[in-house]
């Protein structure tokens, strides 16, 4: 069935939560009502990246982009656009409408600097139809590998591409595969790490929801390269849509003989199973993940032995991240030279980031390595809302650090981020503006690691807790001279003595905020002041003498009699008596009381 027009409704998690499923149904109903159902097809896709503007609908062949689509818009879009061929400009993504006409999507600021490799099919295909994946070259790389290449050639190609792990560590993927290939023990295993525990990150989820076949295909290629016939995908149960689409993809791949026995009649067998994780952050660490795959407690163990030597069931195993896999078929088809031509000297290819926090275009972007933070935040991300000033960006989540304005022009890659005290991490990028308190941010990430520490080793379990206590002390106005140094000492010993990278990196957010925003820590400690006005305990209630009419209502309501003043004269608050209950602020009929 050939359709003249395709209505692509985003079925990613972001848009689904803004009810895109309802929108898709409305389109289907309305299209049927107008008798267009043989001409116009409605397709549910994965994430387009502009989740902030969801629900998102793209209509082909024009390739126009309707944003924040409401049910009420649908009849008009169907009547005007799909029936009469006139694009309904008022509902289009504002960025794409200019005086001269409608800009193609790729020309808008959000998409212009992006380059889609891992996300190549997200938003373009129906992820629940394997044929659409095949139409856009799905499984072609597997066919090429099985019929034209030796395992050594595959490994060499990946090595030459310069691909490094996208799960955080940045280890060269080809070398990892070579280790596993060189092991004599059999059977071997291929594992995909889809745990994605970093708060605010949803890169891997989007790949699984938008193009699950790219991961299945890459795992089969990896299996052929290292000599494995079995794969596991470890995905958190909190990603129901990703799990559902993965299962559909696996079933369809089996049905088409792209998984299973004797693939492409080459004698190569490969099959994949899903393992559900309960969503503990530490289970994303590869040795903990292996334990969890085997049904054991998700606790890390010392390395070596590395998984390539002893992994699942004590057998040689490679563990790679979802996004790492998603790059593999593109490398095989386009060649390692093509891939190596993208990016910087030591970081090749692209990286997907999930933009969040104080940024206009929260969503998903894929940029060539070497793009600057300024380009990501101010061009692609559309800048900071409400005209506020940029303060810092956090990459690498709870393992990473903050990057202040002075480093906005650093080209982003694995090494440059380490140099400025942060790290690539898995791709979460949280933007902070002048209203964010950096001590409070450090506390947020440390609270996360304290909760998520598996408790196996004491530096991480107890040390991070001590650090959190110090931060609580500082933010509640009880900080003392020397606390910053204590934090630094603790941080360094936790980094040096924890068993796994969770503990080893947990102090990073504290260290990097001290490095760049020491003055904010000092203001909390010495002046008992929170410059951003975030830390409750340091805020003081004050009365604005210009607004105060002297009604006395606040004084009557104050539980500690902290407010005094003559009738019709401005009142004042005695800070020593004030217990910061906030009653006066609520009661003042003239909004004369403020917190600062």
């Amino acid at each position: 069935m050939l359709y003249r027009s395709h209505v692509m409704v985003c079925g990613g998690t972001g848009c689904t939560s803004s009810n895109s499923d309802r929108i898709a149904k409305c389109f289907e109903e309305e299209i049927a009502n107008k008798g267009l159902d043989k001409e116009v097809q409605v397709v549910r896709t994965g994430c387009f990246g502009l989740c902030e503007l969801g629900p998102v609908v793209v209509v082909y062949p024009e390739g126009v982009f309707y944003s924040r689509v409401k049910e009420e818009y649908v009849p008009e879009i169907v009547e005007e656009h799909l029936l009469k061929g006139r694009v309904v400009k008022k509902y289009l993504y504002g960025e794409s409408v200019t005086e001269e006409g409608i800009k193609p999507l790729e020309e808008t600021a959000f998409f212009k600097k992006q380059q889609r490799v891992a996300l190549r099919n997200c938003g373009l295909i129906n992820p629940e139809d394997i044929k659409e994946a095949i139409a856009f070259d799905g499984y072609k790389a597997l066919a090429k590998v099985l019929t034209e290449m030796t395992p050594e050639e595959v490994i060499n190609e990946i090595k030459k591409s310069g691909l490094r792990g996208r799960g955080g560590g940045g280890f060269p993927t080809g070398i990892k595969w070579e280790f596993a290939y060189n092991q004599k023990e059999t059977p071997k295993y291929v594992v995909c790490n889809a745990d994605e525990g970093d708060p605010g990150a949803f890169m891997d989820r989007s790949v699984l929801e938008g193009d699950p076949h790219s991961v299945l295909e890459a795992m089969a290629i990896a299996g052929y390269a290292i000599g494995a016939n079995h794969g596991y995908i470890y995905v958190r149960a909190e990603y129901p849509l990703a799990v559902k689409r993965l299962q559909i993809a696996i079933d369809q791949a089996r049905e088409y003989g792209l998984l299973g026995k004797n693939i492409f009649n080459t004698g190569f067998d490969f099959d994949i199973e899903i393992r559900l994780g309960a969503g503990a952050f530490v289970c994303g660490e590869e040795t903990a993940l292996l334990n969890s795959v085997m049904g054991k407690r998700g606790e890390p163990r010392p390395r070596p032995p590395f998984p390539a030597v002893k992994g699942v069931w004590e057998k040689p195993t490679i563990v790679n991240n979802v996004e790492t896999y998603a790059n593999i078929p593109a490398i095989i088809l386009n060649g390692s030279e093509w891939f190596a031509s993208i990016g910087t000297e030591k970081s090749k290819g692209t990286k997907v980031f999930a933009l969040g926090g104080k940024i206009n275009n929260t969503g998903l972007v894929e940029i060539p390595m070497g793009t600057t933070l300024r380009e990501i935040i101010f061009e692609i991300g559309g800048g900071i809302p409400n005209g506020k000033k940029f303060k810092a960006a956090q990459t690498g989540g709870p393992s990473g650090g903050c990057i202040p304005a002075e480093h906005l022009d650093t080209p982003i890659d694995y090494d440059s981020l380490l140099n400025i005290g942060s790290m690539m991490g898995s791709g979460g990028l949280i933007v902070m503006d002048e209203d964010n308190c950096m001590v409070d941010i450090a506390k947020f990430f440390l609270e996360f690691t304290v909760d998520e520490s598996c408790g196996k080793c004491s530096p991480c379990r107890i040390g991070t807790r001590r650090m959190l206590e110090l931060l609580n002390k500082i933010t509640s106005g009880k900080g003392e001279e020397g606390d910053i140094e204590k934090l630094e000492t603790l941080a360094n010993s936790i980094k040096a003595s924890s068993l796994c990278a969770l503990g080893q990196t947990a102090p990073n957010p504290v260290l990097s905020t001290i490095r760049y925003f020491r003055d904010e820590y000092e203001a909390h400690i010495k002046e008992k002041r929170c410059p951003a006005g975030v830390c409750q305990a340091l805020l003081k209630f004050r009365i604005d003498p210009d607004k105060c009419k002297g009604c006395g209502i606040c004084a009557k309501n104050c539980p500690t009699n902290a407010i005094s003043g003559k009738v019709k004269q401005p009142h004042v608050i005695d800070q020593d008596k004030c217990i910061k209950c906030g009653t006066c602020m609520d009661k003042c009929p003239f909004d004369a009381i403020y917190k600062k």
Partner: protein
Amino acid sequence: MKSIEELEKIRKETLEKVNLRKDRNGIRITVGMATCGIAAGARPVMMAILDELGKRNITDVVVAETGCIGMCKYEPMVDVYVPGQEKVTYIKVDENKARQIVAEHVVNGHPIKEWTISSVE
């Protein structure tokens, strides 16, 4: 799946149905290829367009098949999408017209008004 040929067959068949979505950047030409279009001679039109683009070494123009537009009496119909401009729909296109559409509209940027649907509506 027993062979690459089998995969290639599925790829080609499905691509025809979804090619419309590819390449949001450049010029796109769609040809109505539902039953009515084919009956009216859409296939030679499609071939003429491809041939003309090929002769001129133009590779960045996507040519896609599309379904019934609902105006069968005007078939064969060809739509030309130039980024940033309204689409132009040509009606009752034949091989000769198709070649001129490529030359004038796609290459030189001048739509041939007399052959468009707006000339009859």
